[in-house]
């Protein structure tokens, strides 16, 4: 991967796309209005994308479904969901989720 074209292409493309999302209405400087359907699609896309990234990282081990209490990531993730719901704190969610994941890893090992 080191210094490969893939890394740089990923960075340049992601930067351009992210900038586009931020500038799309601010840069024209006029009162553009989103059509209602677009507004509704935009409402569901971020949560769907995040959930689609999170779920496999928690529940799959080497590509196979691993829903059991000795899967460290699944337990850490569920604990993190609970902490995030209760505290809304990014810092606490990360710290407590990491501790839970590590505890299960050490016990299961």
């Amino acid at each position: 991967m080191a210094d490969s074209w893939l890394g740089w292409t990923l960075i340049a493309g992601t930067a351009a796309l992210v900038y586009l999302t931020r500038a799309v209405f601010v840069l024209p400087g006029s009162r553009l209005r989103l059509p209602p359907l677009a507004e509704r699609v935009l409402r569901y896309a971020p949560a769907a994308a995040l959930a689609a990234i999170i779920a496999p990282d928690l529940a799959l081990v080497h590509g196979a479904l691993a829903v059991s209490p000795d899967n460290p990531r699944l337990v850490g993730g569920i604990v993190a969901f609970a902490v995030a719901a209760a505290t809304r704190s990014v810092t606490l969610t990360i710290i407590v989720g990491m501790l839970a994941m590590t505890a299960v890893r050490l016990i299961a090992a």
Partner: protein
Amino acid sequence: MHGDRMSAFRDGAASAVSLLFGMVPWGLVAGLAMVSAGLTPAQAVVMGLLVYAGSAQLAVLPLLIAKAPLWVMYATALAVNLRYVIYSAVLAPYFERLSRPWRVLLSYVMVDAMFALFVGRFRPEDRAPHRHWFFLGGSVVLWIGWQAASWLGIFGGALIPRAWSLEFAATLSLIALLMPLLYDRAVVLGALAAGGVALAGAGLPFNLGLICAIAAGIAAGLAASRVQRARARGA
């Protein structure tokens, strides 16, 4: 005149300091995750400077590790960051009178925390001629804090043993970001559908499972909101 700008800038900067508690761990994790995913430190620094969006950076990295094709990574970054399109639409009336360089700059520094702070403080119709200096002041604090934290993760992350699986912190931070988005039942259903399809489709080539999952999540959310509204109308 000049004093008003400076005081608006300082006011914004001071208001943003408490937001650093959320930004700094986020930047640290992003820095760490970039090098864990195989980017060189130079690439990681440039990515932090150019992209400056922890969620988009963290979302593409697991895909980079999984050797997903570029277009899947781009589509994912775009989907995760579509919330900025909404911020952009909300902020446009505030900034429409500013010069183009200002609009270019303020678009670049736009992040979740600053958006929430600014919109909570000002209304578009307010007569607050220096509010863009407030936005800039707060953004400068958040930008410096986030970049510094990211570099700490990039250059200090190697000191941390692999067995600790610190890259899992990136997924945990996405969980923390997902939670405040789950504000109504339709969004929750969309997220559940997306998660389920992502698990079922994990074996598909080219990470197509992820794209199917996002599409399924949006469709489920739209369908659920339609049912909700039909029910509200019927009641």
